[in-house]
């Protein structure tokens, strides 16, 4: 059974139809890369999956459970949504770290707030806190940030911030981790460290959806590539097939622009 099934998602902002019937599915442990030009709806799709936008039509299922059905108003209620969005994690383009917390504090905050809702929180306060801290430290170690735990976001480089943000998302153990152009806000020399971390997550069979403009990376890391154009999924399939032998003319044009740029060395970053 697929871990994620998205069926016929549509989303309109005022007069602009941004998503026009998006359907795809994802298997556990797989990585899907979503590519396409700016304005094709990639980010909106991720925001719909994370319930930051409410789709006008369509169904979202995780592990067979209907998380969202536009036809069923109850699936759109605030308290319900809060639990459901924990199936997903989201790493933003602009990190959105909390500036008043250290790297460690950023990773721990949500987990600590969740722990307060546990019935045994009062008796076991200390143990729970230590457990959360140990988990957060392990995650930061894994991100290569062992010596940065006590630093505040403004004391970190963009690449370090983004790795903290990845650790923060992982702390809640989401079923599916989403990345919204995770390297687009970074200096070219800092993208490598972030991409390496994402690659290592893929090697550990983390289920991920990655929106990216890093074509070489998209091809390298993904089990499946989706090419979006003007609110539709125009093409999807095995990375080799999509990159080497695109079926659609539009995909070919899009990839051509990128390969030319990469040959020119402009966005050759890895």
């Amino acid at each position, binding site marked *: 059974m697929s871990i994620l099934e998205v069926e016929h998602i549509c989303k309109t902002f005022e007069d602009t139809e941004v998503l026009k019937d998006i359907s795809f599915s994802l298997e556990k442990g797989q990585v899907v890369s979503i590519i396409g030009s700016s304005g094709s709806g990639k980010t909106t799709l991720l925001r719909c999956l*994370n*319930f*930051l936008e409410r789709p006008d039509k369509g169904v979202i299922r995780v592990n067979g459970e209907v998380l969202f059905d536009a036809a069923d108003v109850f699936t759109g209620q605030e308290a319900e949504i*809060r*639990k459901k*969005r*924990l199936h*997903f*994690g*989201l790493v*933003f383009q*602009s990190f*959105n*770290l*909390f*500036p*008043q917390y250290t790297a460690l504090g950023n990773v721990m*905050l*949500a987990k600590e*707030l*969740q722990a307060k809702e546990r019935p045994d929180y009062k008796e076991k306060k200390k143990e729970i806190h230590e457990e959360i801290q140990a988990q957060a430290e392990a995650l930061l170690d894994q991100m290569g940030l062992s010596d940065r735990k006590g630093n*505040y*976001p*403004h004391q970190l480089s963009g690449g370090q911030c983004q790795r903290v943000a990845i650790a*923060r*998302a992982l702390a*809640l153990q989401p079923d599916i981790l989403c990345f919204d152009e995770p390297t687009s806000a970074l200096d070219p020399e800092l993208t490598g460290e972030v991409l390496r971390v994402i690659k290592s997550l893929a090697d550990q069979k983390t289920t991920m959806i990655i929106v990216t403009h890093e074509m070489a990376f998209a091809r390298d890391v993904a089990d499946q590539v989706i090419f979006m154009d003007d609110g539709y999924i125009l093409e999807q399939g095995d990375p080799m097939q999509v990159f080497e032998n695109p079926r659609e003319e539009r995909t070919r044009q899009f990839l051509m622009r990128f390969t030319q740029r990469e040959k020119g060395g402009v966005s050759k970053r890895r």
Partner: protein
Amino acid sequence: MELIMEQFPIVVRALNVGFVQTLKLFFITLIGACPLGLVIAFGSMSRFGPLSFISKIFVWIIRGTPLMIQLLIIYYFPGLVLHKPIWGGGEGGRFLAASVSFIVNYACYFSEIYRGGIQGVPVGQEEAGLVLGMTRSQIFFKVTLLQMIKRVVPPMSNEIITLVKDTSLARIIALQEIIWAGQAFMKGSQGISGAIWPMFFTAVYYLICNGILTLLLGKLEKKLDYFQ
């Protein structure tokens, strides 16, 4: 000079009494206007059109007219025009009327500062909290509030220092604050009359008070410097 030395203890004692009233008005205004300003800020940011409209009109009127006029209207209007003196007589009534005027006036100024502070926190902060499964109130108290406070402290410091000096406007309804106490020695009080220096000397009180406030608020600002 010798005369001033002789008058000094008497004057200082009277000015101290006046200054206590000044400080009382200052603190009451702060305590009242800080939360009321937040209410008005939420009102003017409301998505409910009429509420936002009324809040904005209210802020426009209060910020667009002199505080002195507001004091006079609030104190005299009920008694002289409506024939319903609601403030009661004496110093207590004057203090109550002055407090209401100052709280309403300063709440409007604060509301605009708060609005800037709230709207200045990037939307991404709230979205990051939502994605991490936090409730709206957790996001407000654990994520956005401190960032707002940091943004709001410098403009609030300005207003607070202005407030110390603005309390002197309450003299217009004969509230017995420090200016009133100083002026008494011009007309004649406790055997001293025609003395103008006590009035001038009140400035020292304001200066010292604002000096202390500047230091404290500067410290607070420094304390919030640990993040950006």
